[in-house]
């Protein structure tokens, strides 16, 4: 199983500079854990202390915001494309 993950500039320090990495998982939660194993720091950046998706990181599966799918339990299939975009926010 292979899922392509697009990584924003600010998180490429965890991927050796790579902007795309591959991962595995039946759900987004499993993918996050898998990414943390292969790119230490990457998975951890996506979740908060309670293990929930970070409020200021947007994650999309096939261009759909996972907040409207299953959140961290969003099911994934082989060949899915996941994009990570930090929120653009401020005050």
């Amino acid at each position: 199983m292979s899922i392509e993950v697009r990584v924003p500039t600010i998180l490429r320090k965890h991927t050796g500079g790579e902007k795309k990495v591959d991962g595995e998982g039946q759900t987004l939660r499993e993918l996050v854990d898998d990414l943390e194993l292969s790119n230490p720091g990457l998975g951890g950046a996506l979740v908060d202390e309670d293990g929930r998706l970070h409020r200021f990181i947007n994650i999309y599966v096939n261009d759909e915001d996972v907040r409207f799918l299953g959140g961290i339990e969003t099911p994934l299939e082989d060949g899915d494309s996941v994009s990570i975009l930090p929120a653009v926010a401020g005050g």
Partner: protein
Amino acid sequence: MTRAQLQGRLDLDRDTYEAMVAHARSDFPYEVCGLLAGTDGQVRKHYVIPNAARSMTFYQMDAKALLGAMNDMDDHDWDLMAIYHSHTHTEAFPSPTDVELAFYPEAVYLIVSLQDADAPALRGFDIVDSKVTERILYVGGEEAPVGKR
């Protein structure tokens, strides 16, 4: 006027500047936000992105519109040149929240201030690892209006 160490410059064309100011005015008193895509120092496209928070003191780009813009940039091989938002009642300087939530070190953070309704101010900053430095901004070749000194 709050100052930051000056480092580098940014040149913008007048049309882009006026479009950002017009956008800021269009939803006053709520903060607005948008992106500039560019290559070789030229703005290629200006994206108006909805502020999902619709607040006078906070902005958060609508996630779907943000992805659409970033994908469009990728499709055209443009870079993310700048992220801009408006301050409707305060100066054009990054707030603590702006610094805390600056997750795009590759972009210039532009702030339009409507603190003086008749004289909008525009300033631009690099925010990297929570450190703020300021670009000298030029609009159409002239120094940008930076607000009261």
